[in-house]
């Protein structure tokens, strides 16, 4: 059985380079997650910050947890909140993809057809609270289980479930045709 994150972090208390195993193991996943949430330049900066912060806080890591991934996602979520405006700006941009003012059509149906699903998802994510968005995206993009999200965000599992349920309902609603038409009408007005 290979070395767990916990054993690597424990070893890193005496020998900092042992932490490198944690970096090697999880950098790509954290980086991919970040790049989906914010622009690439911001994501790349944050990725380094996540691991530098983790390294600084490794003394407080719960060594009973073999995988450090939920902990790293927790740090990631905290740092992302510092960049909330960037994330919202990115989502707003995606929400406008199909309504390029240079190619605006007078036919709302045309807009709906060109809009597609991505702007609707972006608008759906924009409508969530930051807390709901964190839970939903850790679940959907981070592939974390309820219990892992609870560890990452320092929340009770019940709260994770309820936030996830609300967030999914909201996204579902944003994907309905009616929402698309309403949104298109608003854009056209």
């Amino acid at each position, binding site marked *: 059985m290979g070395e767990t994150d916990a054993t690597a972090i424990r070893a890193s208390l005496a020998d900092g380079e042992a932490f490198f195993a944690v970096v090697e193991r999880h950098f*790509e996943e954290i980086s*991919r997650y970040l790049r989906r949430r914010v622009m690439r330049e911001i994501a790349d900066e944050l990725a380094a910050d996540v691991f530098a912060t983790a*390294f600084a806080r490794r003394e407080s*890591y719960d060594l009973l947890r073999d995988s450090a991934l939920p902990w790293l996602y927790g740090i990631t979520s905290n740092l992302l*909140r510092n*960049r909330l405006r960037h994330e919202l700006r990115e989502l707003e941009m995606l929400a406008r993809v199909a309504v390029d003012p240079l190619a605006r059509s007078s036919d709302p149906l045309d807009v709906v057809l060109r809009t597609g699903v991505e702007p609707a998802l972006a608008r759906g994510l*924009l409508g969530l609270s930051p807390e709901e968005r964190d839970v939903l995206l850790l679940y959907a993009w981070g592939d974390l289980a309820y219990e892992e999200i609870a560890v990452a965000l320092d929340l009770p599992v019940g709260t994770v479930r309820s936030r996830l349920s609300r967030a999914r309902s909201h996204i*579902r609603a944003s994907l309905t045709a009616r929402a698309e038409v309403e949104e298109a009408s608003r854009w056209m007005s």
Partner: protein
Amino acid sequence: MDELTTLKEFRADVSGALAGDPAREQAMSTIRALIEKEAAATPIRSYHPRVRQPRWHKLVLPRRRLFVVALVAAAIAVILAVLPMRQSSPSLVGQALAAIGSGSVLHIVGEMPTGRQLLDLRSDQTKPVMQREEIWFDESRGVRRDVTRIGGTIIDDTFQSKEGGFTPHGIIYDCTWIAAHPTAATKARVSCNLSGDNGTTPHSVPRPKPTLDPGLAGFADSYRSALASGAAHEGGSGVIEGQAVDWLVFDTKQGSERVALDAATHKPILINGPNALKLRVTTIEAIDSAGGHFQKPTPDETPLRPSFGRATDQQTLPLSGAAIAAGYRDAVWAGSSVGGLPLASAVVQQLVGSYYHRARPSESGVGLQLQYGSLTANGHRDFTKPYLTVSEAPNPVLATAYMWPEYVGTDPRPGEFYFSPIAAGQTGSIGLAVGFTIINGHAISVQASSNELLLAAARALTAAK
């Protein structure tokens, strides 16, 4: 396909191939350097790299700032939403609007607690550290300015106009700027296309007028809907800090939002958000267009702080006040024990603070670290037991880099202890109580496993002798 499956595919392509990615290699190299620095400096007792300042826009206390902006935006939304009612409604809302004025510039100042506290060491009185948010908004001219201060120090400033958004660090890249400067945008590694391709031909894309933050649009929509549907209603009378108020209640998707109006002037004085956060409105007025402060932020208005700090142990001192005083000039300690925790180590350290992107040369100085409680075999704090650390630096700048990475705002005055207590229910790394004070020009940072230990140490701080 359900919404979760759709969402899993959303933006799955933007991360791209990572193998050999320069950004990844650069990040790995940075982390390797951090690890090597610590390994080379044996033993380093603690290390706190500061999250570097965002290049485009500095947001400090982001979560709370979001809510304060949300709450202020809510006030804007309330006003904008009921403007059509101004002529016809004699209701409480109408009276509130009449009290605000009729100018084109909306000026709002609000305060809310930052979650941090200030302890007056002479009177032993504690008061919350407040964050002050000031907004000027002129919808007709399409301009908005947001300034956030703590203790008079500007920690965040944004100006939005048809020319773009600006912070003290410069322009905020947006799709209009990127379209007009495709080559520079590519060099800056920003793009509005998922592929990252900006092309090379400049073209014009209209910039949307400043409005409420996108993430706050939901608030605004909710308010408008609420008012249009009659969901906003009068919520009775009450008293806040001896002041008679009338309540307006707005039902939003986030919960119930209550706005307290001064019973005499009808001006909003308090907004209770659905997240139990309260914004105390100190000023809300509609002034004429000459009264707005719609200038671009300047680089010198926010303090530049080091982004990375490092401490290397130099000399271990005997565990007595006299030895510590002899080994470190102007040393401060909390006595030979605090809250039952004995002094376990005293070490003179070499401190280095570095600035992001080498904005300034690195600074260095000599510091002191005192550990109370149990230490591990490696000399680290034992986080499984109560602990207390007192760290000293010759100036606040070095302390900011090394000991107090999240400190923002104005430095505490002599006799004041600025601290961030452990919130109820918090555990683990975020459950670290941290405080900061300045004694004889030296910056003193205290870290503890409990609020009680932190404050006991703060009250006990005195010159070592």
